């Protein structure tokens, strides 16, 4: 591994990553001023970021890497640190480069939309999150940005929040990717504990430490959980097509070039650390291959342009995962090339689909046709992009396909299965590419909801530039290989790699023959597209169930479960709550004493005076009166007698403050309880059956006896005088008060008291709210409990 240099432009790099967030803050105001033309100045931001990272390309091509670090939460080893190597540079260039045109495109696409400023804002937030993700060096930094991409994509997918389908799709994406994010965090934490390293650059310096580690399998599963959900791998693929509810610029940006590739990015980033093991080369190709086939087959069924593209994106992600999983250098090179090619052509095609939708009013492929005269520029861009997607020369997609066939053909294991999967997948992709790029433009002119004409510069600049880039990158074979693909491959393999790309195969080899087979198969299938579509639809209808339905069932199940649980623990019966509370109290004071085996010895009774005995007697009489009272009101007042007697006891044993408070609390409790009682439509007498009364009696005795035993045990401990001495000594000298209790309350422990009065204040508010509840008569029991709380609270003091 090459040495890591400290980035000499640390500050600028960090600013570049954070710049989209500033742009997000400015965008709404700028849009209010300039309307949709705000896209032009706003696009300068991603263009500037592109320039910044383009500046690293020559150095990175010479196998240098850079780290930019700023402290964030240094006590936890968390830094805001970014790592610039071949992998992150290419991703950063794709994000900022495609992002520039997406911003422009959004300017044209969302023209006149009331919330266009907000839309720009969300796009920029996402862009910043994505940049931070791919550049993140510190694992926690990476995770924070990872989560930010989930949240911002939630905002973007749900942008048309008045539509229920959008909201569902947004929540679904958030649940799936957010759940994966939690797995990822767990995986990162395991990595940190296993290696003691938190910076990716430090981990990569010693890449083999994890592969033989005892925690390898859990780490592998958790990281895969994060990557597979984010990159829509089977069986988590369903959220991505649903996310097509978002406006097209979002689909073009998030669901082709960037966010969904975050999972692939993660797998590639982790490849030197986790890759190459038997587990890796089995699981990844398996899931990737299934996703590739499922994605392409489902894509053929669709007639909506965006959905067709969405499913091929799923398929492409599957292909990337499969290739990353094969783990040989050639397969990885294929993955890198295909990722680069895919970002260019898929971004362009999504924008083309959006332009057609915007100009013709529909994106149903069966209702479109003959647009080539009306939209020549868009048609040209669509053709270039589709050729690249089909893997035809002389486009970057062709080179990618050659290399990836080379990779699967030479795969160490299951080469045949992988190759067949890849060929079938690519043939179906060709079918979709042709359907998206040719169907709407060729043939008879079909009447569309809107009279179609060419979109403005804002709309066609993106598709044109991206699709031409796919051609230029293929023609400039040497430069692409040296500056972009080689460095990225080096990051994946973990040591410097040289990539020599060839546009024209020097001799007829296996990949070339496979390419020919792919094209022949694709063309054959395209001619039978309608029949194929009907066939797949029939099979899927016969199955009738998919993960998308499963998601709804899981969510519905969760709601039912939590509903049942809530009804169980919050039945709304005061008696149950109180009983449960007191049982727990009794258990918590009795069980430790029972298990510890240490019941305290009965203390010796000192010589009490006559009047002391009589106060005790009053308390006992009060209690007996509670038990034998005929009406509830009498019981409450009798309880008051007992309380006053306790106050007297406090007074006699030199605790005047306590006695004072006890007296007031007792008075108020009796008054409030009496008021509540008269308001509740209770029978004046307690007419429960003997059994129930006995049960509460046992619990009461348990609580009482338990508390008494605890108190006895406490008083038998040697008394620690340090606090008493401290307060006695300093109460007057520091806080100028002779009443130690009060000084503690308002001075020494003032913040505690502040918290407590906040609680009292809030409790008052809540009780008031409960008393005011009139519509639900079954709630009326609750003020009693609430009214008790402040009194109980005060008693505790």
């Amino acid at each position, binding site marked *: 591994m090459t040495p890591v240099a400290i980035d000499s432009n640390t500050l600028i790099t960090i600013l570049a990553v954070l710049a989209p967030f500033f742009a997000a803050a400015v965008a709404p105001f700028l849009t209010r001023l300039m309307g949709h033309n705000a896209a032009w100045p706003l696009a300068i931001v991603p263009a500037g970021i592109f320039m910044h990272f383009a500046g690293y390309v020559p150095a990175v091509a010479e196998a240098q890497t850079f780290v930019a670090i700023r402290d964030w939460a240094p006590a936890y080893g968390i830094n805001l640190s970014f790592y610039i190597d071949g992998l992150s540079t290419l991703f950063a260039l794709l994000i900022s480069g495609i992002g520039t045109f997406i911003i422009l495109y959004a300017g044209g696409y969302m023209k006149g939309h009331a919330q266009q400023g907000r839309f720009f804002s969300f796009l920029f937030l996402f862009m910043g999150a994505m940049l931070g993700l791919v550049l993140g060096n510190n694992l926690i930094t990476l995770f924070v940005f990872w989560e930010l991409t989930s949240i911002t994509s939630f905002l973007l997918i749900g942008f048309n929040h008045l539509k229920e389908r959008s909201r569902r799709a947004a929540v679904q994406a958030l649940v799936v990717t957010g759940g994966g994010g939690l797995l990822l965090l767990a995986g990162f934490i395991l990595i940190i504990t296993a290696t003691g390293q938190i910076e990716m650059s430090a981990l990569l310096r010693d890449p083999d430490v994890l592969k033989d580690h005892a925690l390898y399998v859990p780490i592998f599963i958790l990281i895969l959980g994060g990557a597979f959900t984010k990159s829509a791998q089977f069986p988590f693929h369903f959220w991505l097509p649903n996310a097509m509810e978002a406006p097209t610029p979002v689909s073009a940006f998030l669901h082709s070039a960037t966010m969904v590739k975050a999972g692939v990015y993660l797998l590639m980033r982790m490849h030197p650390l986790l890759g190459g093991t038997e587990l890796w080369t089995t699981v990844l190709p398996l899931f990737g291959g299934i996703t590739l086939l499922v994605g392409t087959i489902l894509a053929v069924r669709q007639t909506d342009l965006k959905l067709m593209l969405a499913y091929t994106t799923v398929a492409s992600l599957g292909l990337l995962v499969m290739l990353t999983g094969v783990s040989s250098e050639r397969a990885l090179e294929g993955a890198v090339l295909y990722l680069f090619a895919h970002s260019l052509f898929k971004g362009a095609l999504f924008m083309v689909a959006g332009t057609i939708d915007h100009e013709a009013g529909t994106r149903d492929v069966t209702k479109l046709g003959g647009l080539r005269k009306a939209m020549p520029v868009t048609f040209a861009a669509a053709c270039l992009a589709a050729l690249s997607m089909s893997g035809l020369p002389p486009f970057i997609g062709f080179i990618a396909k050659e290399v990836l066939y080379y990779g699967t053909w030479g795969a160490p294991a299951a080469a045949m299965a992988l190759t067949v999967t890849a060929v079938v997948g690519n043939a179906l992709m060709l079918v979709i590419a042709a359907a998206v790029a040719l169907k709407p433009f060729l043939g008879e002119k079909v009447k569309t909801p809107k009279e179609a004409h060419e979109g403005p510069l804002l709309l066609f600049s993106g598709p044109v530039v991206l699709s031409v880039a796919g051609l230029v990158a293929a023609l400039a074979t040497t430069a692409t290989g040296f500056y972009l693909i080689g460095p990225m491959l080096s990051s994946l393999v973990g040591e410097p790699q040289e990539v020599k790309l060839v546009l024209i195969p020097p001799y007829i080899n296996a990949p070339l023959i496979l390419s020919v087979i792919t094209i022949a198969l694709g063309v054959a299938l395209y001619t039978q597209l309608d029949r194929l579509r009907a066939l797949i639809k029939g099979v899927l209808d016969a199955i009738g169930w998919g993960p998308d339905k499963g998601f709804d069932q899981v969510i519905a199940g969760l709601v039912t479960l939590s509903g049942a649980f809530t009804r169980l623990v919050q039945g709304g019966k005061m008696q149950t709550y109180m009983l449960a509370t007191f049982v727990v109290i009794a258990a918590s004071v009795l069980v430790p004493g029972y298990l510890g085996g240490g019941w305290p010895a009965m203390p010796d009774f000192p010589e009490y005076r006559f009047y002391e005995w009589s106060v005790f007697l009053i308390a006992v009489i009060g209690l007996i009166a509670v038990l034998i009272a005929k009406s509830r009101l009498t019981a409450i007042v009798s309880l008051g007698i007992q309380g006053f007697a306790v106050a007297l006891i406090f007074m006699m044993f030199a605790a005047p403050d306590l006695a004072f408070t006890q007296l007031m609390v007792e008075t108020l409790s009796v*008054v409030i309880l009496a008021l509540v009682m008269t308001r509740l439509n209770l029978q004046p007498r307690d007419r429960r059956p003997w059994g129930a009364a006995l049960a509460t009696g046992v619990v009461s005795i348990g609580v009482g006896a338990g508390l008494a035993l605890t108190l006895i045990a406490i008083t038998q401990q040697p008394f620690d005088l340090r606090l008493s001495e401290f307060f006695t000594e300093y109460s007057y000298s520091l806080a100028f008060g002779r009443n130690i209790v009060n000084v503690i309350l308002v001075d020494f422990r003032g913040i505690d008291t502040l918290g407590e009065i906040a609680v009292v204040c809030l409790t008052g508010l809540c009780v008031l709210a409960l008393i005011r509840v009139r519509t639900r008569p079954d709630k009326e029991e609750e003020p009693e409990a609430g009214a008790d709380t402040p009194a109980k609270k005060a008693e505790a003091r």
Partner: protein
Amino acid sequence: MRTIIFRTIAPYLAALMVLFSIFVLLRGHNEPGGGFIGGLIAASSLAIYGIACGVASVRRAIVFHPMAISGFGLFMGAAAGLLGLFYKQPFMTSQWWPIYLFGVEIKLSTPLIFDIGVYLVVVGAIGSIALALEERESD
């Protein structure tokens, strides 16, 4: 409950109790008492006045909504803690400004403000509960 004797005495009793509660509040720093107990006494006085003369007249007498009084008390408590910041000391550090009035030293201080805050919180919260419950009796 509304006997003529009770109704005649209640206003005086309530007034005396409020006065006593303020006395208890102010002596609290050196003798038994303080904001908490004072607040409870004042709240009981409101309850008694309410039982005797009706909730409406209590609400008229205390002008503000009891919950507002409680909230203001909480605000005072927090603000008393903040005063120390002007002297570059941590939150809740006590400040003392003794003044001399008619030859007697009176210790104004942030703990005093804080204690008054506690008093108001308790009066307001407990008082509003009691009043709300009494009010429902007459609905």
